[in-house]
């Protein structure tokens, strides 16, 4: 029986090359075609996939060994083997790959036999396996044949075959793809793990619909069956529709503000020769000015969980105490400001994306008002994510106050530390646009990736968090929640990484 599913999302995958873009919507699509050694279920739990088991070699803490599933076939019918894994990891480690960050600790990937692979790390890396769920495996023979051995390479002046064609081991086979229009996949009837999953969808079509209203309209009129990005304001109405189901749940993502705490003077402010953000009291005042419950209630319509730390609860290192945010207290905030020498506040500019996170622009607007109430006049510049992220990633950064959201695909605090708190050196701290730089903290962060003793490691993590939370480098807002809307015959749970597992879908009622 034909059971097609039309799946609408706000944005399209940027590419289907599995190693070209480490970005939410891209992964969301690609995971249906390509598979990795391990996977996460919708709750974030790590499960075996192409690797049936793994271990750190008892004699060598720097080497991981993965046993691969037998009888796995690529979509073109060729058999999956260790060669493909080695090839794919090497491909993911190339400079043109966007996934090399997951594999910085990897020294070498090697084949032991057809179904065994070893990954040697530069030092001991007790958490390497967490990263393997992000590295997808493609067919070596196919890539070589089609001259796609490198992830997207602009220098070629030629397009990469893998950008439009795919050959993975996943539950769905690519039929056709028009970027930003639609991507059609059909069920992989020869799927190796058919027995373990329902795999009821016969044809899967992803249609990106950018406009919120149009996306909702498409669901209401029955043109699509499943909407991944339901605008928060429409959840209530959709819930009242008898033929629709809305599932909500937390996402593995925290939304927060960052600011330049290091520069001697800010360009966008009205304070001469001083950087107000460099003063912890000012940062604390800002933190106190934010009315998190109000943002949750009005801007997010309840679809978020306020937080006091830039870490979602799924992450190793999260505690209730850390999560507690300071209560909103404008009077105290003003007092702090006065103490810091800004009794009349100051003015500055806030940069905000307007098409990346749930109601990102609304959050910024609300915050601007709240900062205004303690006397800090904030200009708001909101723009598309591609421009916004550029400002953050430039070196030196071109923003002094910005909103960003961070998900943690490895479910470990290290990921946050090394991207957000480590000083900008080498491949680390690339998203740390605050200029925060502390040799001691950097050393502690670096020690994490080498620490084999997990309790000891956790202790370091806790120490780091206590210290960093107190520093108030970032102003956490909330952990974002997600809602999926679909016809009542479906019941797709919200995936914490926002990568719905469509092979798990089963149709009820029909």
């Amino acid at each position, binding site marked *: 029986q034909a059971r097609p599913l039309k799946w609408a999302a706000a944005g399209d995958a940027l590419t289907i090359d599995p190693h070209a873009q480490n970005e939410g919507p891209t992964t969301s699509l690609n995971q249906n075609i390509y598979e990795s050694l391990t996977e996460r279920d919708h709750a974030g739990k790590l499960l075996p996939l192409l690797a049936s088991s793994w271990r750190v070699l008892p004699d060598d803490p720097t080497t991981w060994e993965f046993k691969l599933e037998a009888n796995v076939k690529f979509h073109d019918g060729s058999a999956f083997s260790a060669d493909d894994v080695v090839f794919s990891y090497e491909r993911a480690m190339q400079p043109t790959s966007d996934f090399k960050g997951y594999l910085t600790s990897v020294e070498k990937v090697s084949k032991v036999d057809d179904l065994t692979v070893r990954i040697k790390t530069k030092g001991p890396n007790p958490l390497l396996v967490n990263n393997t769920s992000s590295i997808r495996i493609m067919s070596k023979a196919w890539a070589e044949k089609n001259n796609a051995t490198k992830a997207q390479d602009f220098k070629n002046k030629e397009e990469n075959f893998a950008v439009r064609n795919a050959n993975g081991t996943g539950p769905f086979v690519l039929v056709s793809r028009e970027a930003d229009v639609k991507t059609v996949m059909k069920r992989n009837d020869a799927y190796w793990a058919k027995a373990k999953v329902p795999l009821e969808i016969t044809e899967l079509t992803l249609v990106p619909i950018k406009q919120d209203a149009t996306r909702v309209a498409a669901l209401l009129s029955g043109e699509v069956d499943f909407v991944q990005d339901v605008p928060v304001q*429409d959840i209530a109405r959709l819930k009242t529709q008898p033929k629709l189901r809305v599932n909500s749940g937390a996402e593995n993502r925290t939304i927060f503000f960052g600011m330049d705490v290091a520069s001697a003077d800010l360009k966008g402010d009205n304070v001469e020769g001083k950087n107000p953000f460099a003063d912890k009291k000012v940062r604390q005042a800002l933190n106190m000015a934010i009315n998190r419950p109000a943002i949750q209630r009005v801007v997010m319509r309840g679809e978020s969980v306020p937080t006091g730390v830039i870490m979602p609860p799924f992450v190793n290192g999260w505690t209730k105490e850390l999560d507690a945010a300071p209560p909103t207290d404008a009077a105290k905030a003003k007092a702090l400001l006065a103490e810091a020498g800004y009794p009349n506040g100051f003015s500055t500019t806030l940069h905000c994306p307007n098409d990346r996170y749930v109601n990102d622009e609304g959050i910024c607007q609300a915050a601007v008002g709240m900062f205004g109430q303690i006397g800090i006049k904030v200009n708001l510049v909101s723009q598309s994510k591609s421009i916004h992220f550029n400002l953050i990633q430039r070196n030196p950064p071109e923003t002094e106050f910005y909103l960003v959201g961070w998900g943690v695909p490895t479910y470990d605090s290290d990921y946050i530390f090394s991207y957000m708190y480590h000083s900008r050196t080498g491949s680390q701290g690339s998203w740390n646009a605050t200029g925060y730089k502390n040799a001691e903290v950097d050393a502690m962060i670096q020690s994490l990736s080498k620490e084999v003793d997990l309790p000891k490691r956790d202790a370091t993590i806790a120490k780091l968090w206590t210290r960093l939370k107190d520093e108030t480098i970032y102003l956490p807002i909330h952990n974002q929640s997600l809602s999926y809307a679909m016809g009542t015959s479906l019941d797709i749970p919200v995936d914490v990484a926002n990568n719905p597992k469509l092979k798990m879908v089963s149709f009820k009622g029909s």
Partner: protein
Amino acid sequence: MSSTPLPTPRSQGRLARLWDSDLAFSFRSSPVTVAATLLALLLVLAAVAAPLIAPYDPFDPASLDLSDGFSRPMEPNEITGKVFWLGSDAQGRDIFSAILYGSRVSLLVGAASVLFSLVIGVGLGLVAGYVGGRTEALIMRVADVQLSFPAILVALLVFGVARGLIPPALQEQMTLLVLVVAIGLSNWAQYARTVRGSTLVEKNKVYVDAARLIGLKAWPVMLKHVLPNVAGPVLVIATINLALAVIEEATLSFLGVGMPPTQPSLGTLIRFGQQYLFSGEWWILLFPSLVLVLLALSINLFGDWLRDALNPKLR
């Protein structure tokens, strides 16, 4: 001289004469035009006097209270109990005040961009028409290129380029200016074409020769003699372009490249409101849209009448 001058029966005051003129008559006798003009005036006045009329200042984020968010029109807010005539939006902004301030921004952008394109277009058109030759060919070719791109595309491009060139810190302050330039640049060619056309006609009229005979140079002749005579069609285009510019600004804002959310224009308000098309908060979309359409419509009605009234060939 044996001929006697004809008696002049009409010697009333200037105002009375204006009232009695054909233009005023055709105005008075078209109730639709009168209504439209009154409406347009009302909207413009309300926009200009926004700070005096508006109960809140929607441009001051500090005065907003999130708890006021999504109040229904004329109903007290569930939490704060405040009443907003036309409701409030997601930020707790009073829609009525936001519309007043928003029309102010829209009209400011509209008027300034019209002025901008008018100055460029009329200037270039006059020069092209009066000087002729290569200058004319060059100017008109540039105008052609410009005309080949619809306003929205030009504005998007200008906006994009400005984004690339203006330092991010200044962008918010510059948005208004960029909008004015973007919309202004996308419309000047029309003026240039019209003015050139009329100038070509006017400059061959002998009153221009008469002026040249007393030794006037090209510029004084253009400005003092030709310009006033090409002003009619320019005025018509300017009026209609004002409506267009307001719409264009709204469209740009709708596409996300307009006024920042903290200083919303009508278009920005509509862009926000559009998110609530299905969620039941209809007032956030409806009222700004209505004002935008009424504003454009009333200006257009006036412009339409003006065009017919100034066109000697009709009627």
